[in-house]
């Protein structure tokens, strides 16, 4: 286990280097640097010499790799430049908006788990009965709706028609997080439900369930003690697989509900072509994504004895 953790942590280093390199390269590819942008913003016409001097001052005339190393050095000190639009420091802006997005993500994941596991288990236990069909049809329909449409529908019915929630979240609070989190949770639950149902069906057909039954163990006990554990591994796998679309989804949902997180910040930055902001967003999202993947891979070993003991790898 210890060896495995160390190996995975070492593997992280080249990936992080590639992520930072690509994020840096993207910015260069955009064909815009801080000097040009500053000139455009002030609206002054300046000679090429002045531009060159300003570039030399910022080190922008040096070779690409040298610039990358300098940028990486700044990055390690938490300096990611300043926004083209607001002039504020990119890193501190990003950090100040991160908690809102984390809250949204965590609440939506919790909602997903609360919805998908019980319904998935219920559908499996009631296989091919009416309950099962209703749950499956609902999951299919939920899976076929784009999240921005779900967001707008929820907003229309629960915020405008019923007036239960504010239309636009003015502050980060639990009441405001419900609708955006629900939007994200609906799409995810729809996907998870199917898999949880399939896992439970698979698990129920195994010998140990029959064995437990033969020994007189109550069905509910088998379900709670053994089958749910298998579900947990499934759900964690799915969480890893969907964390990418979840992070992308927060951008759309946050900008619809005016939720003041990094996703909305990114969408605003994209519309304003605020490259340092976009760069920070992409880079940190990729880093978060990679770390989450690592954590889930490690948690498999804790949760699933088969993987931990190095047995059959499915």
């Amino acid at each position, binding site marked *: 286990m210890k060896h495995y953790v160390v190996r995975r942590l070492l593997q992280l280093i080249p990936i992080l280097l590639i992520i930072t390199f690509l994020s840096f390269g993207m910015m260069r590819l955009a064909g815009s640097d801080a000097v040009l942008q500053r000139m455009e913003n002030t609206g002054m016409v300046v000679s090429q010499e002045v531009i060159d001097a300003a570039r030399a001052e910022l080190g922008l005339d040096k070779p690409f790799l040298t610039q990358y190393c300098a940028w990486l050095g700044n990055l390690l000190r938490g300096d990611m430049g300043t926004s083209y639009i607001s002039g504020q420091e990119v890193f501190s802006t990003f950090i100040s908006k991160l908690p809102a997005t984390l809250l949204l993500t965590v609440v939506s994941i919790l909602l997903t788990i609360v919805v998908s596991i019980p319904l998935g288990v219920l559908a499996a236990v009631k296989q091919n009965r009416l309950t099962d069909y209703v749950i499956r049809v609902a999951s299919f329909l939920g899976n076929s709706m784009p999240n*921005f449409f779900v967001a707008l*529908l929820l907003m*229309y019915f629960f915020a405008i028609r019923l007036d239960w929630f504010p239309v636009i979240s003015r502050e980060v609070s639990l009441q405001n997080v419900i609708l955006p989190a629900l939007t994200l949770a609906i799409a995810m639950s729809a996907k998870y439900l199917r898999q949880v149902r399939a896992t439970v069906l698979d698990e129920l057909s195994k010998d140990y369930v029959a064995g437990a039954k033969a020994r007189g163990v109550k069905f509910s006990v088998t379900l709670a003690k053994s089958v749910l554990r298998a579900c947990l591994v499934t759900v964690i796998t799915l969480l890893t697989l969907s964390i990418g679309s979840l992070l992308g989804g927060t951008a759309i949902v946050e900008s619809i509900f005016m939720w003041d997180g990094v996703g909305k910040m*990114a969408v605003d930055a*994209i519309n304003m072509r605020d490259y340092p902001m*976009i760069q920070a967003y992409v880079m940190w999202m990729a880093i978060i994504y990679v770390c989450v993947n690592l954590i889930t891979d490690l948690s498999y070993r804790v949760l699933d004895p088969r993987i931990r003991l190095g047995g059959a790898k499915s």
Partner: protein
Amino acid sequence: MTGTVSVRRQKIPKNNIRRRLLFFLLLAGLLMLAVTFAEQICPYDPNAQIFSTLEPPSAAHPAGTDRFGRDMLSRILVGLQTSVLSTLTLVAIITVVGTIIGVLCGHLGGMVDAFMMRVCDVCLAFPGLVFAMAIAALLHGGLQNAVIALAVISWPKYARIARSQTLALESTDYVAAARLAGDTSAQIIFRHILPNSAGPILVTAMLDIGTMMMELAGLSFLGLGAMPPTAELGNMMSGGRSMLQTYPWVIIGPGIAIFVAVVIFNLLGDTVRDYLDPRNSRRQSSANGKKEQEK
């Protein structure tokens, strides 16, 4: 990303699936007809601003009119055309590119394989949609660039499937026999590998159409895809956002159109998967072989 989710499907009688397949093919065919002839069947010119603005749905305008006085139904039809055709182009691109790269990697092995698989790893190391947003922003938006952005993040999945199929097939006896008989690489790829790996790749592509359509519309919704005045379902909904409270049909019409199209493609995809699933086949002996390949 080491774990895989095991999905166990019930065995369904083949005749049943065939009937379902025909039905959904017919539905998808109708959708494609509507999409292809959108300009001919739409009741009014989708870009003519000739009606009173923001009229609620009525007999003359079943989906109402938008804020510029354009007929919503006509715009939805044309928007559906834009969405569906660009989605199908996208899926076709990633399927073809992914398959070519995957088959070549699997067949050639060595340095090419190692290099391309690392490239795949890097592409998969980024969270998909975020990466697509960044690429689309870098390319300054536009429908074509949104398609490119989504293609960049999606091809590795196909390359991986095609590669593992190729590797499995390369080790079969009949490919070895073909090689002994003096077949060239091209002959082996075109005669044996491509036809035998087409199934799983096709199923993946069919199941991806719905998702891709939603993601493409999502990029347009964020202003990173089709630009107004081009009618596209995502940007139509984005444009109507501020009118949700008073004129909900401006949003709900296009939303339902995406939803219906995605439902049809997803139903068709699911059915194609069931149809090609050897576990649903009566011929068990040949089924076992295919089952191994799928893993």
